[in-house]
């Protein structure tokens, strides 16, 4: 077996793939954060908790109701999205008139509640979730072994990201959304139901997080804390990419995942911090973010 820059290709491409998977979660989550922030002016701190809820809904569906992975992939975003809609209607709506830092504090409190409740119920050691039978096994590509499930996660995430981009940039609904992001009052004056749009947008962003959670369930164990640390990394991703551009969020998410995967191969000690270090560098060189518009 040949070696590449002193690293066996199996290990290298394995980590690259894992990096792409993490990258796809970064992309989906930062996409959701950006869409929510655009319209609600709230940084949704509960995003990590909602991602975790997606994984748990999948686990509960399987263990309590016998729903398989594919049903969960469809149902979990709907269920968690509905919970998100309830949160927006009952809680977030009440603070639209105050400083948007309060939105961050409110969603942080919600994240604490959700994570605490799941920890009380299920402990913090994590629950296993089987890979669906259709995607077990893998293919030897010669230079690496490709587990089907991992390939599926990357493809599914890409499809969801591109579909979201298409919906926001190319459809009429997306045009309404962009108009309301730019100027909600004027959009409302044109007869578009902005409050409904806000609620649906929050629900959609939350559903995206839940979708990522279901994708993650068979790779990482289903754990109440799985979203807590992830969301901080996603914040760094958002700072690096800037929240101005949908495509920017997707590209930044995938590339940072890739960089993190490569760091795991070549300098594993820095793999936990590399994204933060990149954030520092970006702040020094291009403070507005790679895809951000200068303030």
């Amino acid at each position, binding site marked *: 077996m040949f070696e590449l820059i002193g690293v066996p290709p199996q290990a290298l491409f394995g980590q690259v793939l894992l990096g792409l998977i993490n990258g796809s979660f970064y992309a989906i989550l930062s996409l959701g954060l950006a869409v929510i*922030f655009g319209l609600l002016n709230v*940084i949704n701190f509960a995003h990590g908790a909602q991602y975790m809820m997606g994984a748990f809904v999948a686990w509960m569906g399987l263990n309590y109701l016998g729903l398989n992975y594919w049903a969960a992939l469809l149902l979990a975003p709907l269920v968690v999205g509905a919970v998100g809609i309830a949160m927006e209607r009952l*809680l977030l709506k*009440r*603070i639209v*008139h*105050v*400083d*948007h*830092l*309060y939105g*961050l*504090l*409110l969603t*942080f*409190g*919600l*994240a*604490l*509640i*959700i*994570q*605490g*409740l799941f*920890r*009380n119920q299920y402990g913090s050691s994590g629950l296993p979730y089987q890979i669906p039978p259709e995607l077990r096994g893998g293919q030897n590509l010669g230079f690496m072994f490709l587990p089907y499930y991992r390939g599926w996660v990357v493809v599914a995430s890409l499809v969801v990201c591109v579909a979201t981009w298409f919906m926001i940039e190319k459809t009429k609904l997306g045009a309404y959304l962009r108009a309301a992001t730019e100027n909600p009052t004027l959009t409302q004056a044109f007869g578009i139901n902005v409050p409904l749009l806000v609620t649906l947008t929050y629900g959609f962003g939350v559903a995206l997080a839940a979708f990522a959670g279901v994708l993650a369930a068979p790779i990482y164990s289903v754990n109440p804390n799985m979203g*807590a*640390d992830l969301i*901080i*990394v996603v*914040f*760094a991703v*958002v*700072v690096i990419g800037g929240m101005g551009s949908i495509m920017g969020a997707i590209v930044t998410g995938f590339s940072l995942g890739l960089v993190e995967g490569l760091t795991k191969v070549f300098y594993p*000690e820095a793999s*936990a*911090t590399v994204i*933060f*270090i990149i*954030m*520092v560098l970006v*702040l*020094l060189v291009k*403070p*507005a973010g790679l895809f951000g518009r200068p*303030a």
Partner: protein
Amino acid sequence: MADIASDETSGIPVAKTDRSADQLHRNVLIGLALLLAIAPFVAYPVFVMKVLCFALFALAFNLLLGYGGLLSFGHAAYFGMASYVSAYTAKNWGLTPEFAILSGTAIAAALGLVFGALAIRRQGIYFTMITLALAQMLFFFCLQTPRFTGGEDGIQAVPRGRLFGLIDLADDRALYWLVAAIFMAGLLAMYRIIHSPFGEVCKAIRDNEPRAISLGYRVNRYKLTVFVLSAALAGLAGATKAIVFQLASLTDVHWSMSGEVVLMTLVGGLGTVFGPIAGALVIVAMQNYLASLGAWVTVVQGVVFVICVLAFREGIVGVVAKAIKKPL
């Protein structure tokens, strides 16, 4: 940034300086000093010391948010780093407690200078996310350098030592007076800062940054200075805490600690001078009484967060201030 500091009807309540209120503030300060003098005789000194350390931490956080208009979600970094440095120097270098605390504070200030310089390059919500991300980076650094931090175990059995090489601090009462003195010094320093010309400029920047720039103030220099001061005070609190509990651990640098100090300030009253003290007392007492509930403490904290944001944005001291129609 102008939208962060906002008017009284919508935004974070902000303290206003009012000459007629100075007398009241002086009385409150004297009252606090008297309370501190009798506290160890009526309450368990270790509990009071814990409250004082966290109150100082919350005061430091509030200096940045209430007077600089900057919401940091990474203040655990300065608190925790100072705690580690203080514990490490006291235990491994045998520094006397006053020097251990000073070195912890100095490192926190230096860290604040670096992190602050980075974070103030962005505004508003980005500033908050950057501080959180930088603090998380420091958390991983602490996790991965067990030679310095003791890893998961932390630095245990830190000697309290002898103050100035003379006074044995193993006695809780003796240590209490040191902690009370540090707290009072920190409070007075903060009070002085916010009432100085420097503090007035900070408030002007908080209220209207473009206007402050047009008046010729170097806004970033002021923001960075208030950030470093806040980090140093947070460090002072963390360094003292390490000596009191003879322990520095990963809990001190974890993001949940950053969340806790936000909660204390929120409960006590954002942007009030004395609010963080009341908030720290309430939250530390709550944690003590609810300790038996285990993981439910997180849920309760979350609920308090939600209730405060929805219905109690003024906080305890903010409500009192409103009732007596004077800023506190």
